[in-house]
Structure formats: C-alpha cells, structure tokens
C-alpha cells in the first residue's frame, strides 16, 4: 500500500549518496595496500635515509652484474616467448579449425598449467626431468647407463621448458580464440585467387592474426620477464631474473634500498609492456567478419589433417600432463614401491628445529589464509564490479585498468612493498595474521571482478525495476534478483580467490612469518633441503597443492559464465 509521508520519504538521491560511500572501500583498499606500499618503494629507493641518495641506482647502473641481470631477464623471456609460440601456434590452429572427439575436454586441459602454482610446476619438472626424475630413471634402465644422461638441473633449458609449459595456454586461448572466429572464406578467397596453402597463411591468415599473436606474446613475455618460482627453484643459484634478485637483496641480504631500486626498474619495464599490450588489444579490434565457431570448423578429412591434429594435440598433452603425472608418481614411490610414507611424514617433525612446525600445519595455514582472501576478495571485488558495471564513462575508463593494476605488478614487488610500508607505524601489520590475506586479495580480487562483470552487465536492468515496482525494497531486490543471478559468478570468483591464494608464492615468501608458513613456502624449503625424505615430502605436498588447484580449476570450468580467463 502507499506509505506516503511528506518530507520523510526516501528520495533516491539520499540512498544514492550512501551507496557512493560503499564504493570507497575498494579505492581505500587499493590506496592503503597497493599505492601506499608502491610509494614507499619509490621513496626508499630514492632516499634510503630520508634524504635524496641515488647510491642504489648508481650501483645498478655501474655494476656490470646488473646490466647482465637485465640482459638475461629480457633474453630468457624473449627465448621463452619464441618457444611458447612454436609450441602453441600449431595447437591454436588445430583447436581453431578442427572439430574432433574430446576437443572441449582437451582444450580445457590446456588451461590446467595456467592455474597451477609455480611451485608445483617447479616440483613437477624436478620429478620429471631431475637427476632422479622419470626421464633419467627410464633412460638408465633402458640403456644400462651408470649416470643420469639428461643433466638439466639448474640449467636455462629446464627453465625454458617450464616456461613453455606454463604459457602455452595463453597462446592457445588468445590466438586460438581469435582464429576460431575468423571467417574461413577469407582464406578460401586467397586460394581461389591462386595462393598456395603456405602463401595463404603467410599473406592472409598471419597478417590478420598478428595483433592477437603480438598481444599474446607480450603477455607471455611479461610473465617470463617477472618469472620467480620457476627461476628460483629450477634455475638454481647461478640463474636469476630481476624478480629473483629483488627477493635475494630483500631477504637474505636485507638490502632493502637496493631491492626497492630494482623493483622500480622492473616496474618501468612491466608497465611499459602493459601499456603496449593495452594499445594493441584496443587496436586489434579490426572490423573483421567474425563468424560463429560452428561455421569455421570441420572434422579433419584427410590422413594428413588427422596427423596434424593428433601430433600437435598429442604432443601438447604430453608436454602438459607428463610433468604433473610424474609429480604424482614420484610422491608415492620409494625405492621402486608405492607407498604413502612421504605423506605420513608430513605430519611429523623429526628434526624438531629446522621447520619449526610439522609440514602439515602449513595446510591449515594455507586454508586459513585462503579463507580470509576469499572473504576480502568477494567484498572488495563485488563492490568494484558494481562500480564498473554501468555504461563506460570517463571515471570507469580510469577505474577499470586501476583495478587490474595489482595483477600487472610482480608478486615480489607487492611483497616488498608490504615489508617496507606495513611494518611500522602508522600501519604496523608485520605480525598481523591479516597481512597474508590482504596481500593475496590484491592479486585475487581482480579475478572476482572479471568473473562478476560479464554477468552483471548481462543483467537486464528491467528485472530490478520490475521487482521494485512490485514492492521489493532495494535490499530485497539485491537478495531476490541480483544475488540469485550472480551466485554462480560469485562462486567462481570465490574459487578463483581460493586457488590464487593457496598457490601464491612470490609475495608470500617475502611476508609470511617463519612460524606461519603456507604450503608453497614449505614446499620451497623442503625441495631446497638435502635428503630424499625432504625431497619426497616436498613432492607429496606439491601433489596435494596440485590437487587443490585442479579441483579449483574444475569448479571454475564447470560454473563459469562466459570467458572469465580474459585478460
């Protein structure tokens, strides 16, 4: 019924002002935990003792060690990108142009490495290609050798293989996704005009695909440029990216000003790449006649085509699955027998001192931190998504990339910022149990935003109005209309946040208290320690983490709406 009280009625303007206040949460969060630490890094690198002092930068620019460091960082990233393209392009082509049995499953499987924590990948490659790994064991027994023939431990080659493993999904998804919608008639027209198969690819297909290829390559380059876990574990003490060097300066050497200066240099590069990437993304929207995928794909008709399909997809699957299977296998085998000894050992603390706590405690820690991350990320992400939901405008044009910025900042830099900014007043959170969830939320909440936005934008605003006209108050509209519609996307966001948090390594290694290690930190310690029991426990813990990530991945694939993995 009409409840009309003149003057006291809730004007829309009043509630809108209150709603605006809620929008301050994500901005305050970013300001406090992202921009403030970043500013502190700036300050510390330029003025370590409060006065302008360019000594850290002088070291960087005069010591040839750092020139080599930068050259190596960029060089290995370039090489990794090239190799990733080499592996990814054939698969992208096959997934884009052919229809075959099990395709959607196989296509989903290519994404698995992308959700795997770097630490798990590092452990998996140790299990697969290490001195006691599967490949060497098999070669030794097959050819009766005395020593492992494949010696990749702590070599660039091993790092490169792991990078390819990690990033092939990006090429397959980004380039393949674009390719799949490309009208095959363009290619057919070239064929009719007399261009051969190769010529057609070179002069028609490739130029059209170029923006997508460049964008995907830049992304791969960016990830490899800031590679941390892979380089730290597989590269050994002699190989280091800038990211690894920041960690070494900050933690073992405790030279924070130099670490901050390095972080600043790295940021200049990564943001430069990000700017180029966004430009290309925007420009790649050429007016092409994009077609639904059903119209561009067909079954492989000839034996040659079948061979291409099975060789590229099969090869890819071996590359992607073999290390993970090797990891599982190694974690349950001891002296040629299957056993759960390593898993049991996780719950004991035989040396009493070295690890402070039984490794299994790290599982509890990880779950606690991930739980906190989920709560924070959903809260911040939900508000941010509502803020970005409406039609594009100048404010949203600024906010949208702003909310993505933490994703483009390297994990170690984020951790370093926390160490520098948040361990003394006015914000002393050094010993706070909230420090890790807050850091993880920085990286996790953009995923929540990305999973929510398509759903929120797809909602018909009339639904809310219809509910309102029928007597539902704004709060009730939220509960009855918005919440049920976005529930799935919210669940996907929560799983994303959980998975990201559980696997987060770089920032965690810097800021986790020694007495409160998470799973990745314990794996790192175990793999770095001597003795087969430590190694075995590391692999067992990695397997557990892999299973958690894989379950997260399955949930995301099952419940996501549209492509949430968009960058």
């Amino acid at each position: 019924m009409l409840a009309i009280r003149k003057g006291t009625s809730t004007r829309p303007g009043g509630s809108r002002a209150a709603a605006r206040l809620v929008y301050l949460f994500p901005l305050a969060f970013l300001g406090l935990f992202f921009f403030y630490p970043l500013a502190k890094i700036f300050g510390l690198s330029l003025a370590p003792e409060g006065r302008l002092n360019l000594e850290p930068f002088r070291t960087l620019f005069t010591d040839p060690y750092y020139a080599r460091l930068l050259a190596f960082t960029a060089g290995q990233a370039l090489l990794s990108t090239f190799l990733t393209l080499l592996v990814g392009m054939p698969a992208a082509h096959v997934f884009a142009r052919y229809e075959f049995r099990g395709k959607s499953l196989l296509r989903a499987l290519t994404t698995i490495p992308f959700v795997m924590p770097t630490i798990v990948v590092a452990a998996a490659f140790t299990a697969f290609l290490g001195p006691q790994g599967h490949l060497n064991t098999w070669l030794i027994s097959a050819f009766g050798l005395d020593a492992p023939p494949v010696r990749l431990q702590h070599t660039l080659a091993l790092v490169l293989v792991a990078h390819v493993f990690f990033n092939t999904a990006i090429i397959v998804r980004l380039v393949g996704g674009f390719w799949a919608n490309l009208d095959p008639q363009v290619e057919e027209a070239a064929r009719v005009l007399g261009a051969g198969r190769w010529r057609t690819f070179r002069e028609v297909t490739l130029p059209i695909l170029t923006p997508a290829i460049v964008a995907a390559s830049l992304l791969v380059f960016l990830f490899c440029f800031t590679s941390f876990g892979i380089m730290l574990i597989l590269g050994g003490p002699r190989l280091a990216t800038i990211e690894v060097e920041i960690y070494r300066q900050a933690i073992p050497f405790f030279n924070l000003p130099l670490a901050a200066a390095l972080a600043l240099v790295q940021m200049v590069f990564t943001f430069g790449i990000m700017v180029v990437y966004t430009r290309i993304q925007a420009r790649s929207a050429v007016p092409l006649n994009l077609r639904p995928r059903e119209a561009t794909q067909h079954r492989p008709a000839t034996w040659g085509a079948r061979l291409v399909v099975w060789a590229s997809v099969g090869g890819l699957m071996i590359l992607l699955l073999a290390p993970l299977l090797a990891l599982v296998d190694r974690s349950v085998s001891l002296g040629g027998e299957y056993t759960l000894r390593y898993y049991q050992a996780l719950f004991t603390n035989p040396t009493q001192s070295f690890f402070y706590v039984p490794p299994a405690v790290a599982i509890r820690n990880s779950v606690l931190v991930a739980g906190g991350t989920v709560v924070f990320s959903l809260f911040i992400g939900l508000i941010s998504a509502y803020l970005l939901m409406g039609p594009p405008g100048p404010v949203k044009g600024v906010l949208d990339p702003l909310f993505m910025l933490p994703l483009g900042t390297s994990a170690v830099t984020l951790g370093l910022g926390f160490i520098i900014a948040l361990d003394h007043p006015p914000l002393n959170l050094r010993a706070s149990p909230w420090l890790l969830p807050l850091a993880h939320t920085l990286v996790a909440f953009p995923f929540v935003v990305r999973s929510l936005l398509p759903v929120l934008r797809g909602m018909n605003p009339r639904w809310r109005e219809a509910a309102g006209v029928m007597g539902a108050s704004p709060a009730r509209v939220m509960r009855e209309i918005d919440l049920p519609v976005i529930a799935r996307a919210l669940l996907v966001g929560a799983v994303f946040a959980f998975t990201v948090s559980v696997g987060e390594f770089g920032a965690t290694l810097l800021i986790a208290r020694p007495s409160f290690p998470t799973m990745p930190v314990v794996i790192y310690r175990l793999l770095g320690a001597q003795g087969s029991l430590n190694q075995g426990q590391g692999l067992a813990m990695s397997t557990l983490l892999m299973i958690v990530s894989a379950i997260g991945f399955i949930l995301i694939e099952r419940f996501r709406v549209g492509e949430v993995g968009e960058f």
Partner: protein
Amino acid sequence: MSLLEVTSVSKSYAEAAVLHDVSFRADEGEIVSLLGPSGCGKTTLLRIIAGLETADSGQVTFDGRVVDGVPAHRRGFGLMFQDYALFPHRDVVANVAFGLRMQDLPRAQVGARVVEMLALVGLAGYERRRVYDLSGGEQQRVALARSLAPGPRLLMLDEPLGSLDRALREDLMNELRAILNGVGLTAVYVTHDQQEAFAVADRVIIMNRGRIVQQGTPQAVYRQPASPWVARFLGLGNLIPGRVAALEPPRVDTALGLFVLGEAHNLDVGREVTVLVRPNAARPTNNDTSEEDVVLEGKVHDCSFRGGHCRLVVKHESGLNLSFDLPSGVEPLPQPGETITLALRLESMSLLVEDAGPSGGQLV
C-alpha cells in the same frame, strides 16, 4: 476527481528536453493510451509515473496524494515492461508470485492468487515451466499475470505487444482489452501503434517530441485530428493545403479547386489551412455527382487489390498524390495511366488548422 493526475511534468537528459510541460488525467477504471512515435517521451513519462525516474519539475498525484518522493516499491502500481523483464532464474509460478510475496501474504493465499492469475491469462498448466523456454506470446501472458497479481490500482503497460508478430498481436490485443475491462482497473497503455491504441483505450493521448498534441476518445481523435501531423501519424495522408476564401459558408481554396465545408470554425479569411480527405471519401463517378461533392479529376498512378477494397493512388495535375480505398465491387479496376473522375464526399473531409502555439513550427 481523477485517480491519476500528471501536472506540468518536464524532464531533460543532458540538456535535451524529453518531456515538456506534460499534463493529463486518468479516471478510475479508465484505460488511457499514450500514443506517439518512438522517442516522443511516452516511455519516460510512464517511468516517471512508476517512480523509476524523477521529473525535473511537475507533479504526479495518485488518489489525491502527491507521490513524487515515494520510491517505486512503495507506490503499489503495476508495470508491464516492453521486453517483459521476466526473472530468468525463476519459473512461471515464482515470477507471478513475486509481487505477492513482497506483500508478505501467507503462502496459501499467494498460491491461490497465482492459480487464479494463470487461469485468467490462459496459462494454467504452465506453472513449473522456465520462462525462457516460453514463446513470445506466452511470455507476454506471464508478464501480464505478474503485473496483475498484486492487485495494483494502476496498471501501466509499456508497448506490451511491441515484440510480437502481427498475427499474434491482433489476437492478444483483443484478449488484453477483455482482461483489462474484466478486471476493471485503471490503466496507462503506452504504444506507437494507433490501431492498438484505438482497440484497447477509452481515451488516447497523442504525444510528439515530449508534448501532448491531442487527447480524446479514439473516435473523436480520428474524426478531427488536431493538426496535419496528427492526421499523418494516424495514417491519414491526403492533406491538401489551402486558404480560407470565405466564411459563410466556409469555403477553402485549394489546388484541387474550391471546397465548401459545412463545419464552422473560428477562422479569418486568408488563413492558411489544411483539408484532410479520408481514404473512404471517393467513389468513381459518371457525371452523377451531387451538389455537395467535390469532383476530382486525375490520372491513375497505381491501383492494387487489397481484398475488401482497392487502394487507388491518383495523381492530380497540380502534382498532389491522393490515396483512396475504393470498394472492391468496382469492375473493371482502373488501369495506371487512365484518366479518372472521382466524387469526394464532404462528410469524409475535415478542416485542419495549424496550431499557432509554440509547438506549431515543429509539426510537419
């Protein structure tokens, strides 16, 4: 007193005026149609009445009380959206029950009312269907049932048949009128289709560019359009410009000759006017015209058979093209190029005077 009173409502978006000083009333039990081309502001007006938009100035009064500050969910009105806005995450029953649940009615009462509503719109048996599996016509019925279920005292319908094909529209138009009359509630019906407005409404309000240009019963509006623009919008295209030549009796000088019109108007000699000739005004003649008829001679431009009638387009030597509907009994059909003589009945003509008001210049 009227149940709904809209007084001097104006609204602009980013400097562009969407509604300009709009006032109208709707009496209890009356079906009022807001009729106008797309972009004329009729939907905005509806949303202001519903409380989904705020007017820049003016007032909306319902049942004697000003409702301007009342949020949409406290107004207790019903609104049927153009795209229906059915909740995709709810089945048919849950959609219809929504408004009832908002009133916190007991479960049994809600259930009974939903059954009643579904029976009213002819959807008994559709209870558990998902709304996106329904056809357009079925969705339209669910939307109608949903907006009727809470028993609103005012129902607003925004192009309720807009997204349906023509045949379905015809059926549902009649059904909708029967249901609205049966329930006996006050309704504001927005449409751009004059046939729909005429069929459903007790009174039509014609809007153009944010202003009301005419209101009245469908018959009155059709009989005497307020301006050439209204006539054209209603599909009456035979508009002949002229000048008042004499007053007693009123005579108008046009390119087709001198028209003697029986209606009295407040006119001055020399005033520019428009003569509207309805399509049914003409019959073929063989020198048997009566004195009141106007005789028109022209060349047949086109003649097409339309079932009940023939659509004849005649080109007059002055360059004017006139369309007429001839009874299909006429044999043989006039052929293009032939010269034809038609007698135009006086009672099928109206004199339109361009409104000299502020909107006058905009009316084409």
